[in-house]
């Protein structure tokens, strides 16, 4: 069966629940209770959004959220915002290292958070575009959008770990 890709205004989405949407296709076909999930949560966050039902079966893929009509786009983005919690680290306030475990106190867009990093080599991934992905000891994710734009003190603290 060919995969159904949704572009532009070939489909309309309405919010059903916090993370659920109803999809109405241009031809009139309706599918209810679909959960939008990113197929590329790291590399292409606004592209290729899979729409899954409660059984985990995929009903369609949105090629690019940006091409949807404004209301549908907002609905999908709201759902993704609710589903994916990846606080953006905007500054490092403190860094300590004891017994091989790193403890960072960070300022994020969600507030101040203290996190433990068990393995500096495996849990801090630096990407080529200046992005840094961080995983804490509880498997929560964080992101530094561009470490080069951090303040001087944060950079100084971070430089020990990247």
């Amino acid at each position: 069966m060919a995969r159904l890709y949704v572009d532009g205004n070939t489909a309309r989405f309405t919010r059903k629940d916090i993370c659920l949407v109803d999809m109405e296709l241009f031809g009139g076909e309706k599918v209810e209770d679909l959960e939008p999930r990113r197929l590329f949560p790291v590399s292409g966050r606004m592209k290729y959004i899979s729409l899954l039902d409660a059984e985990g079966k995929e009903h369609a893929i949105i090629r690019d959220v940006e091409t949807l009509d404004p209301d549908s786009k907002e609905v999908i983005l709201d759902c993704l915002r609710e589903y994916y919690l990846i606080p953006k680290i905007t500054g490092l306030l403190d860094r300590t290292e004891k017994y091989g475990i790193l403890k960072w106190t960070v300022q994020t867009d969600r507030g101040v958070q203290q996190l433990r990093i068990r393995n500096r080599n495996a849990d801090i991934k630096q990407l080529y575009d200046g992005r840094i992905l961080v995983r804490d000891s509880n498997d929560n994710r964080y992101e530094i959008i561009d470490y080069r734009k951090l303040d001087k003190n944060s950079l100084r603290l971070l430089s020990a770990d990247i």
Partner: protein
Amino acid sequence: MNTESVLTNKEVPGSIRDAFAEKLGPDEQLLFVVVGDLSLKADYSETALGVTETGFLVYDPERDDHVKTYRHEDVAEAKVKRMYGNARLRVDFRDGTHEDVFRFTYAVATLADMAATFIKNVADGKAPEEEYEVVRATYEKLMNVCPKCGRTLLHPGAECINCQSKGKIVKKLVKYVKPETKTLVLCLFLSVLTTAVALVPPYMTGRLVDSVLPDKNRKALLWIVIALFGTYLFQYLIGALRGYLLRVSGDRIVLSLRNDVYKKAQSLPLRFYDKTSTGSVINRISGDTNTIQAFMLRISQEVVVQFFLGVGIIVIMLILNWRLTLLSLIPVPLVVVGAKIFGRKILPFYRRIWRRWAGVVSVLTDTIPNIRVTKSFAGEERTVEKFKSYNNEWLNVDTSAAKISTVFPHIVSFFVTCGSLLIWSVGGGWVISGTGGLTTGLLVSFLSYASMFYGPVNFFAYLNDSYQHALSSVEKVFDILDAEDEADEAKGNCPPIRGRIEFKNVNFSFDRTKKVLSDVNITIEPGEIVGIVGTTGSGKSTLVNLLMRFYDNYEGEILVDGENIKNIDLQYFRSQIGYVQQDPMMFSDTVYNNIAYGKPDAHVEEVIHAAEVANAHEFIARQPDGYDTVLGERGVGLSGGERQRVSIARAVLKNPSLLIFDEATAAVDSETEHLIQEAIERLISGRTTLMIAHRLSTLRKANRIIVVDQGRIIENDTPEALMELKGKYYKLVQIQTMADQLAKSKAEEKFE
């Protein structure tokens, strides 16, 4: 219900405690509190879920009234919905409405799971007292962490392996240096000797300049030259001997360190390898141990020698001329301060270099063993490009480090050289004016000693650099040495195994993001042949991984013959299991040794018999080198089906009590499948057997089928009963029968 205290994952803030107290009924008592970390709007915030015998309360500062209360009796369903980086406790009420009552990060997801189960079970009429016992056990297990580092302890009260061994680095390394103490002390003695002898020539030079040459005393000149010759000969002979001894003991140190790291790498649990690339482990065993060895020798030898040399020279210099000595010490504080700054700056670079280098090694370990795949997809150029880019990354960081590590010593040398200019100008002035009691010879001797003195100064300036370099290697090596071993607390407990297997309330997730197994309850009687079916990713292999004790961090219990498998000697337990994988791993060794891997002392005929049972003997006998055929890396030289039969022979030889086949015939053709099937049927008679299979035809001997779907056991009965049930198993059979028929008719078409 009376409880001594309220169970909680951390101290409940006063404001939350007060807010809860206001809402509790007169006789209502909190049983447990889950202190959360996210508001419903996903901002970091102190929230809490408090549970009582009759209801639950949620504190969220972003709610208008902060606390909302709910009754258990109104609840139809309570479940944790895991999302990405956060999760919610969703409650369906009996009136048909639903609500996300509590939001949190994965830090408290397990406790929220437990709370959801408590709420649901009490709402369904189960006794709160019994449910509370489960809650208490979960809290005890979760709170069983090291107060220093927060790592989970092996058992309550256990000493934290991580903190216990994180003493001073030198203390840890002493263990490896200790066996070489005698040789190292001898080397040290030889060093002191050569150092002492090295102090003689400058003195002789002074005598030459001051008295022998002006007096034109040929005899004295000859004696001094002979003495100098003897000194040099002694110095270099002893130096060569010391170098040899040092090298040999250094090799022994690195050998024992490398052995220990390798041994440890063998006993690490699989979850260590889930998160650490094999490339970086290999890098630690091969490269980092060498760096540490070099550093240990430096610390145990050079530091002492250079220290004595420095002190010796200073004493002589003070005797020669104390004022000039003070002058020559002027650059020293600069060197000390500079070294400190340098150390701080260079460490992050060494860490970065290590990481980049581990990246380079990981490309190697990824691509060289997979060279066949690379070639078959014409991916050579891409691979080379990838390697180049990683290599360039390493070069960039190394170049940045080189700037610091080369510029700094040169700055030091510059100041040191300026120190000698001071001696020349001041000391030379004294010689010319005849003041200060300084002669030309004394000045020449003094300058020689001064230049020798800067040797130890330079050494100590560089020492920080090599210390920092070694420190980053030590960290990596001790990452392995200090990592927790596979838990094996029941060494020596080797009960006979009949083969009754029980999974009791087993829940498991590799990390906290997704539950892989939920509420698994199965009982398998001795001698039963059980087929495990389900779609890809449903959790079939995980079930087996838990039984094999590859992962121990699950909730619930797995019992074999009534005994928790965690209480059975790990090696003995695994030796009782015959495990045949879909893609059997072969070692680069003979076919014979590959079969005898699990029983190296097996008699030749036992091995041949095992091969016969596994339908492997015939193809082995056809090989020119028979059982001596040496397999290439990972079994190159044998077909997939042949490798599979060798691995079955391995299992036969082991004579195990339990047998596990994980998709054993998935990757072979029908004829080979038939041969393997035959071998399996011979092997399984009378043994408890678990067979994971996609091809349901493999399960024709199974007397029970377990269907796994999304980590849950959804069907568990005889094949006939499941066919009658017309559930998932029935559907799978239907689909496969249709597929088989289609394949058969296509094959017939082609044949015609």
